[in-house]
């Protein structure tokens, strides 16, 4: 071959870089720069260097509340998607005997992922609403005498919508790492007298760790970076970090929105790299 190996690698990777540099690296830098600029109040930016935007973001009690709300939703969603995702993957890998059936059931779980998230979210409205299916069913059987109002436009509805959308991000990576567990390891453990609980605790959970980590990254980064579900499903009663800077943008306050975005991105990156320290994802995915 006349071309050297690194050159071939770079040639193959160059189209990807041609997208990532102008549409990921530069935009992030622009946001970083805008966060130290001042606004002229009409959507224009005045080039300067000020940390006032950061001071405002970091010292306001509002910011603290926003992060409290967002972290609350992130932790709740993470917890429920993890429990559901783990046991569904466990069921498909260790309990369904027919491999073709297991793949079929797996596909049933994944199909909604390829449809619109927004539509899936609003589809809870006819169920959870004041006159929705759940309330009218409970009223009819006499369990309640007044419609439950916490079902829709509440924190409950936000968590339901997130879990509905994001459990798939847990199922797929956990399924993937569980499917790779060598069944002979499990057999050996049984021969050595391990109980089923021991097998779960000492074999299945540790060997699914990379899948759990990957799923957690997806779920946490999506919930923290989202504002849509919180806005619609809480009926405006809960705010989110991203929702707040979306409001800033709509009144053309770019610098303060940018400062808030930088803070969020730093928190997100810290979280992701913390999770990444526990597993080598690249090795997990490529091997």
């Amino acid at each position, binding site marked *: 071959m006349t071309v050297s190996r690194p050159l071939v690698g770079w040639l193959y990777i160059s*189209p990807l870089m041609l997208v990532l540099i102008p549409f990921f690296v530069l935009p992030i830098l622009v946001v970083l720069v805008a966060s130290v600029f001042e606004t002229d109040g009409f959507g224009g930016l005045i080039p300067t260097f000020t940390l006032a935007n950061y001071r405002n973001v970091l010292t306001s009690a509002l910011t603290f509340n926003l992060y409290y709300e967002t972290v609350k939703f992130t932790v709740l969603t993470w917890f429920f998607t993890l429990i559901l995702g783990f046991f569904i993957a466990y069921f498909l890998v260790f309990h369904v005997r027919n491999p073709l059936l297991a793949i079929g059931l797996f596909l049933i779980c994944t199909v909604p992922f*390829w449809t619109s998230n927004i539509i899936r979210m609003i589809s809870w409205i006819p169920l959870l609403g004041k006159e929705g299916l759940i309330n009218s069913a409970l009223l009819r059987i006499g369990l309640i005498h007044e419609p439950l109002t916490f079902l829709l436009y509440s924190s409950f509805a936000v968590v339901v919508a997130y879990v509905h959308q994001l459990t798939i991000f847990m199922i797929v990576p956990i399924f993937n790492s569980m499917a790779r567990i060598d*069944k002979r390891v499990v057999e050996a453990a049984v021969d050595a007298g391990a109980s089923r609980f021991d097998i779960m605790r000492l074999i299945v959970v540790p060997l699914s760790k990379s899948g759990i980590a990957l799923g957690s990254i997806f779920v946490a980064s999506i919930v923290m970076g989202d504002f849509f579900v919180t806005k619609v499903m809480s009926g405006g009663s809960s705010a989110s970090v991203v929702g707040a800077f979306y409001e800033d943008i709509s009144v053309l306050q770019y610098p303060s929105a940018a400062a808030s975005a930088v803070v969020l991105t730093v928190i997100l990156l810290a979280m992701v790299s913390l999770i990444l320290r526990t597993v080598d994802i690249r090795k997990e995915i490529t091997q």
Partner: protein
Amino acid sequence: MSAAQQAAALAPARAKQRAISPSRGGRPWTFYLLATLFTFYVVALYGPMICIYILSFQDVRGGLVFPMKGLSLHWFVDLFTQVRTGDVKGAFDRSIKLAILVTIITVVVSFMAAMAFRRRFPGDNVVFSLMIGSLVAPGLVLGIGVGLLFNALGIDTSWYGSALGAQLSWTLPFGVLVMFAVMSRFNPAWEEAARDLGATPWQIIRLVIIPVLAPGLVAVALFGFTLSYDEFARTLQTAGPQNTLPLEIWSMTLNVTSPSLYALGTVTTIISFIIIGTALGAIVLMQKRRGARVGGH
């Protein structure tokens, strides 16, 4: 051997069978528990969606909740003819064109990137980190960045320019990750055999690698199309004056309180299902053909 001894000898074997998803014999109690959980999950996954598809077929008296009021296509007609619901037809048109563009670029670029990652090259870890960063960065932050960048450069934002790029920064890392999973099952021996038979590098790619990886490439295309077709956060600040479909749906969730919102949900889901069906069908067909060819020899 007495019956008791026999039973004692069989007990561990039976315990083992229970522990590792037995292919015969009784199911452990956890099977029933987890099967119930799974059923519950699938019902909760599809139930609400099915509700809004049913509700979209009400007549003019229809509301946002059950019970059904009549049966008609009123809200579908309403969706495409009323001014109040915005330019739904145009949004459909743009979203599908954009998704096709994104799909083509995603397949080609992800394939090339995955080829690069088969061997180590200087800077590969940096590229990998950038990719993961692009995947987890909050969509709206990136959208704002792209919007400000285009603004600073004096280029107008548009769905076929800035929004296309912003969507690619999300579909490409996804596509490359899927390609990694696909490539890990590729046996390098086939490639070496082709080289030994005198194939040029281009012939190896065209005649060996691409045909072998074809089902995986269809899967990447499926991801590219659907991720773009439903993309919202990155498109919001970058689409310019003309809306894509998810942006149209978003403005409808804030303004429209009639079943035409559900009708839009039904229509866009039908399109999604056609795409998913076509892609999965193509993959199954390829695998079947391959199986038949191997069986025939």
